[in-house]
């Protein structure tokens, strides 16, 4: 349903001064892709606006136009009543700070201090003012102790906050954030949420996570195919499941089970440890269960070359056919343990695959049996077509051409990408690329599939599809994620990591009920669950009482 087709009712800006008035705005990229078509809306001072829509709906293009990073082609943008564009005054870029998705792009100077000072110095502030601003902003984001640290040595969450500080230091009137929660754990997400809640100016947030947006924003503009389809209050948006579905934003699949209240999940009696601590003659643990693990780490530790501990004294067994979730805060060692399980990180201790000890020489065997899907698909996809991407693994295995063709067809079918053979991976959406990465792993017929943050940066529709695909895959799966809803729907068992150690290893229902562990290691989902409950009530009321 399009604005022009009616059914549209503008929510509009809050009463007060208008900051942006956009009329008839269109934008076409040089390759002919029409990103925006005849957009019209206004943003008032102090508005808290969620800009939502499927991947490729034109959200990022729109904010770049608002900021003046892209030239105006057709239509007009008025800022504070003044016409902007090439023939008029430029869009005041420094009054509209953008926080892009990847914080690395913001941190182009050497140290945190220099990165934060860059904007105010360009604004002509004196050195004393800059010093004060930098200190203040870094204190706000909790990075004052890392002021002189090189940017590349910060953790991802710290980089995100440093990037935010570098924007805040310019005292922008409008703060635009593109996917601010991507790859953040719940604790970092909560910190960011509190920071944004305290921002006094106008907020425009692009995100797929409506639970994050629900409490920060009061208004939502839904873009689809480059057009404004709805201009709602955020309450109206989340309470209308039909609208959410229409725009691929329906996240209710996340609480399809257990009524969204994980406290209702039944608790199953369990053992906390899969192994007895009796040692055999060779000093290795004696298995306490009859099942032989497919992958096993015993007293396994790994240190990074710079001496940092990656994981320490890990005892972990993965059994055939199970789905294991590995959770923990950013930096807990989840990705490190995944690399250990792949034999990429060779540490101290014992590492077995089907009872055979694995070492540097034998890990090639392992790589044929463990399919890895990395967090960032850009690290994995490098071929010019989907066919070549999926064929890469089987080709390396020196399989006959007929077999390779068969595997390509089969793998693409399993991830619902039939007909994509000649498509260029680079031009595909985030969700499609993620599924292609899974297909590339599946084409090697692995026994185990290891997925690192599979839902990061995906829109709810892509997440739902991914969930459906993963549920159908009948193999051993290891999933590293912060996404509690994926854990609940997919995994049988959950291990919780904290500071490089496994602190819990229990059935998933126990993890979901264990609020203490969730709270101590930054996985506290209570806030999100409360939001879910509120949204469920809103949707219930909307359905039964017509709003």
């Amino acid at each position, binding site marked *: 349903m399009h604005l022009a087709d009616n059914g549209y009712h503008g929510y509009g800006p809050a009463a007060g001064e208008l900051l942006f008035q956009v009329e008839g705005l269109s934008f076409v990229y040089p390759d002919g892709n029409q990103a925006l078509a005849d957009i019209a809306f206004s943003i008032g001072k102090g508005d808290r606006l969620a800009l939502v829509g499927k991947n490729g709906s034109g959200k990022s293009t729109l904010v*770049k136009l608002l900021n003046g*990073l892209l030239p105006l082609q057709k239509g007009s943008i008025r800022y504070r009543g003044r016409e902007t564009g090439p023939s008029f005054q430029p869009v005041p*870029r*420094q009054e509209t*700070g*953008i926080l*892009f998705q*990847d914080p*690395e*792009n913001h*941190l*182009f*100077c*050497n*140290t945190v*201090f*220099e990165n934060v*000072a*860059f*904007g105010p*110095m*360009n*604004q002509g502030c004196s*050195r004393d003012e800059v010093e004060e601003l930098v200190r203040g902003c870094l204190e706000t984001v909790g990075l004052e102790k890392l002021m*002189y640290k*090189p*940017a*590349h040595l910060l953790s991802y969450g710290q980089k995100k906050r440093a990037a935010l500080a*570098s*924007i805040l230091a*310019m005292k922008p009137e409008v703060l635009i954030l593109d996917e601010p929660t991507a790859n953040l754990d719940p604790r970092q997400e909560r910190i960011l949420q509190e920071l944004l809640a305290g921002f006094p100016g106008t907020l425009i947030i692009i995100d797929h996570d409506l639970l994050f947006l629900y409490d920060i924003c009061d208004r939502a503009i839904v873009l689809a195919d480059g057009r404004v389809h709805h201009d709602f209050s955020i309450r109206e948006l989340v309470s209308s499941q039909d609208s959410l579905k229409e725009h691929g934003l329906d996240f209710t699949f996340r609480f399809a089970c257990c009524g969204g209240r994980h406290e209702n999940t039944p608790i199953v009696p369990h053992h906390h440890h899969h192994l007895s601590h009796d040692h055999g003659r060779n000093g290795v643990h004696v298995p306490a269960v009859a099942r032989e693990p497919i992958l096993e780490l015993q007293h396994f530790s*790994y*240190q*990074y*070359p*710079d001496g940092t501990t990656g994981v320490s004294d890990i005892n972990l067994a993965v059994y055939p056919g199970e789905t294991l979730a590995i959770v923990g805060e950013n930096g807990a060692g989840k990705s490190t343990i995944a690399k250990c399980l*792949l034999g*990429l*990180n*060779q540490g101290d201790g014992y590492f077995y695959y089907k009872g055979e000890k694995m070492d*540097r020489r034998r890990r090639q065997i392992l*790589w*044929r049996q463990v399919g*890895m899907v*990395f967090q*960032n698909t*850009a*690290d*994995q*996809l*490098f*071929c*010019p077509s989907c066919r070549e991407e999926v064929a*890469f*693994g089987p*080709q*390396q295995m020196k399989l006959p051409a007929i077999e390779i063709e068969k595997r390509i067809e089969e793998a693409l079918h399993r991830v619902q990408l039939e007909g994509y053979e000649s498509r260029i991976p*680079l031009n595909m959406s985030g969700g499609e690329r993620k599924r292609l990465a899974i297909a*590339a792993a599946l084409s*090697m017929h692995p026994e185990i599939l290891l997925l690192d943050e599979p839902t990061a940066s995906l829109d709810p529709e892509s997440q739902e599809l991914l969930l459906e695909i993963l549920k159908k895959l009948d193999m051993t799966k290891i999933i590293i994620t912060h996404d509690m809803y994926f854990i609940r729907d997919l995994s049988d068992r959950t291990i919780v990591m904290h500071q490089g150690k496994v602190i819990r290893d229990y059935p998933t229902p126990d993890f979901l009920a264990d609020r203490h562990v969730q709270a101590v290691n930054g996985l506290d989902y209570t806030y999100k669950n409360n939001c879910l409950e509120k949204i469920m009530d809103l949707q219930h009321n909307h359905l039964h009482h017509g709003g």
Partner: protein
Amino acid sequence: MTETLPESTISIHLSGMALILPASLVVLSVAILLAVLFLKKKKTPSKGPSDWSIPTLDKHADRDSFFHNWNPAVKVAALLLYCFLVVSLKTLVCSAAALMISILAVYSSRLPWRRSLQRLAAMSGFLIMFLLVLPFTSREQPGEILLIFPLLPGFPFHLNGFLLALTIVVKACAIALLMEPMLATSSLSATLHGFSRIGIPSPIIQMILLSHRYIFVFHQELLRMLRSMRVRGFTARTDILTMKTMGNFFGMLFINSYDRTQKVYEAMLCRGYRGNFPAFHTLEINGKDLAKGGMWIMIGFILLFIELMPSFPSP
């Protein structure tokens, strides 16, 4: 064993024992390489991957020493001029003196020796080639001593060529050792600000600054891509498939880098970039800085002057 040739060169025909000289050169080269490898290995935890991470240039910039307390602009200008003077030296003795001064400079800068040795190791292959090739390829000069090896009668070892190679190697080491005190004793942006003060164009300074920042990101991207290829069974072979794979790999790296460049530029524009990086440092020059600079330039000129003295033996 020694005979004087009509062309007034002196040829010394060596027995098998006299192979010691070139052999010792080879052994010395291998020993240096092994020492470097040992130093590298000692730092690497057992069974872990080798640490190929790129070190930060200004990691030790916050220490306290003669060089740390020197204004970067004067330091860069004075040491660069001193380096040019060292390059102009022609004798082994003066070059060796310059090398000793550089060693003292590294010592007084309180920087880890490992970094300086790594610099030397990086250029060791090139220098070793000098030592091995130049003695056999330099032009014969009157009065020169030639060593003739038993199995290589057609390739006389020119002692003058060897001395020339040694002088070049010693000068190169002297200058390479000075790079750490010059570049690693102030923050990179301060050092680059120093370079801009001596007239290096701003675009070059900005390119160095951004390259230093993003080389780490690029390096990580490269490692992640290689890792994902390896877990999908990739092994580099000498076949068409490998060449095609590497072509795709480098192509994708290029696209990713280009994409990042665009995004970084947009982020810079959003923060008011108008072609110049702001100066983050106030570099006030005091008398002490100038005195230090003057001292270094004077040392360079003294070395040059000693060589020019008539009583000093010519090379």
